[in-house]
């Protein structure tokens, strides 16, 4: 239905969960593709009346309802399904921190002091650091070099896909495997990757210059609201149990559906 349903291979993960081996059928609706503090969809998302929306959490459903959205269903994040389909192996050795500097999305530019951030990471992280850059920053040699020269391992999970092109069914699997190699997950902004990391068994941290996008508008209360409402998830050390509860809540890990129910909601007939 909407090309954003395929971002990060989300539709592929859910199709796998529902028993489809090949490409996922079309989802009859809009699937939330990232954590946000609005109605679950991107601010520029165009809605067609009567098309259902599938959001990750009950809180997002309530918020979307209050914003006039109807036919909103809580299905949980694809990540929540993936962590169940690919359970962690206890013998996995974890080391260091996977660090996600705040990034812009396609066509956006981040403004901030990378050197200062690097210094803060060095001061805070006890072990080796893997910096995961968004594909845009990863391709920008100047930015990538800075992190490499700081002695960090620099990786990129890949391109999330767009407009049904260059789709990456294994994006999330790669991200999950990478996160499970680390003890900690950190970022300078609370974001999907932090919640993902918590569900992947990492200890979370949110600290450092949050940077900003050029011309960034603080919708729905923006950064200050995130800091206030999710204050427990900010800081270099965070209570893990609290973080797990919040992550499960925000990713709808307690709200996942059976394959049959999901197939029904998406109008996916059994293969």
């Amino acid at each position, binding site marked *: 239905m909407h090309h954003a349903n395929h971002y990060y291979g989300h539709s592929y993960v859910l199709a796998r969960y529902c028993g489809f081996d090949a490409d996922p059928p079309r989802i009859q609706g809009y699937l939330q593709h990232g954590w946000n503090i609005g109605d679950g969809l991107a601010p520029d998302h165009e809605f067609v009346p009567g098309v259902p929306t599938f959001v990750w959490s009950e809180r997002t459903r309530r*918020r979307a309802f209050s*914003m006039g959205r*109807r036919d909103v269903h809580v299905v949980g994040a694809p990540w929540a399904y993936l962590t169940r389909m690919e359970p962690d192996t206890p013998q996995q050795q974890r080391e260091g921190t996977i660090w996600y500097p705040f990034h812009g999305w396609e066509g956006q530019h981040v403004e901030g002091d990378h050197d200062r951030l690097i210094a803060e990471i060095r001061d805070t992280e006890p072990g080796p650091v893997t910096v995961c850059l968004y594909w845009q920053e990863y391709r920008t040699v100047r930015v990538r070099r800075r992190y490499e020269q700081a002695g960090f391992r620099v990786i990129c999970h890949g391109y999330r896909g767009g407009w049904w092109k260059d789709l990456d069914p294994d994006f999330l699997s790669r991200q999950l495997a990478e996160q499970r190699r680390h003890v900690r997950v950190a970022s300078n902004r609370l974001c999907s990757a932090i919640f993902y990391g918590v569900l992947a068994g990492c200890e979370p941290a949110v600290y450092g210059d949050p940077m900003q996008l050029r011309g960034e508008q603080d919708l729905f209360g923006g950064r200050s609201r995130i800091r*206030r409402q999710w204050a427990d998830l900010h800081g270099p050390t965070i209570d893990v149990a609290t973080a797990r509860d919040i992550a499960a809540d925000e990713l709808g890990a307690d709200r996942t559906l059976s394959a049959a129910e999901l197939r029904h909601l998406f109008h996916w007939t059994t293969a």
Partner: protein
Amino acid sequence: MTALLLGGEMPHWSDYSPARGVPLRSPVRGVPLRELAASAHGHVLVVGPHDAELIEAIPARQVTVLVRGVPDAEELAARWADRPGVQVCCGSLEKLAAVPAYDTVVALDGLDRTGSTETGDLPWSAGLAQLLAVLRPGGRLLLSVANPVGLHALYAGATPPEDSAWGPPAGDDPTRPAGLDALREQLRSAGLEPLRDYAAYPSPQSPSVLLSEEALTDSRLHGFLTSALRRAGLPAGPLLADPRPLAGGLLRHGLAVPLAPAWIVVAARPGHHPSPLPDGLVADGRLLRTSGGWLADGVAVAAGDCLHDALLAAARSGDRPSFRALLTTWQSGAHAAVPAEGIVVSPGGALHASPAAPTDPAALSLLASALHDEGLSHLWPADDTERLLAAMAGREEAPAHRATPQTLRELTAAHDRLAQRLEEARIQLIWYEQRTATLQAGLNRAHRIITVLKATPGGRAATAVLAGARRGKRLASAALRRLR
């Protein structure tokens, strides 16, 4: 002054502005509530969306207001920017510091709009506990509770769910008191003494009439209160039926309290300073019980029946002489322009008009409409009931256009009456057509007889005489024209 964000606030939400063309979303408001708010003292906390004018009626210097929508908080903060004693907070009730800091807590919108999408739904009892936690010893609580099975809800028509319906409806909360008795009991068990309680009509968010249970169960007030409840107005939104005709019945059957759209309780912690509260707040002012009887705004309340109901009862019983006598007394007296629902008729037949009832030149038309809309149309001619009533009262009355009912039951009844009249008109039309056909056949037969008669010698002679006469007339006319 900027609004203080407590947590749980909703950046996109407003309880004060109609959203997406929905006019129902507005703060709690109304004259009687303003009067109640005026009884607040000390440091006052206002919880939930209250009309700004209502908050301004609070005489206290220190007022803290808690709303959940950021745009609302910012607007209120800007409004009172130059009032140093006013603090506007924004967030959900559960984020309020549980410190006994307030002498009066005003929650006249109830607790239903104190939560947010960002925090869980606080059970009603937990919301009350939160209010009590911030109330000082000797403090006073003004609390409203909407009745999920109130008259306004029972008679509500279908509307699409409001954007505020992100959580379960209030009626699903098992901790919510089911009735005024349960509400008072819950307050008592929390250590409060209920000082006064009111049934609020016609809607929880815009009550125009507040009446204590004591007043509502006193038969001496029957006519006065029927009149007050009838004039309370209608709840907003589409209605299945007009609730006003039920007013008298509710009072007689003791249902005015259980079916009230909301209950408001004023309760205090031990050690409060007593201050008198009226038994009722109605259009006629403050209703007070004294040793000498009931007073409304200082004037003795007239005993008797509401004239509107008395007229309808007489009409229903077929007692046309009584109906005519009441009608004549009303329409020949000083209160002819006061609608019948604003008048109490005493057992002796004297009329007492409410000073607050506005005069209306169409008072008689209102009664005529009521005769049709309140189930008596079968007893009256369908057309020009106003003229008939005027004739009964010995007056000349211009026909008035009868308003289309706005409520479903009355509208359906009006539709059914019109459908019946249309069917009757169609039957009449068929009858007239048949009658015309019969007359046409008779006329044809007469023409045939005339033709036969014209062919007889007598007929031909008569035709020739007539033709000659016509010709002579034409010639004479032509000669006259030439002479002129």
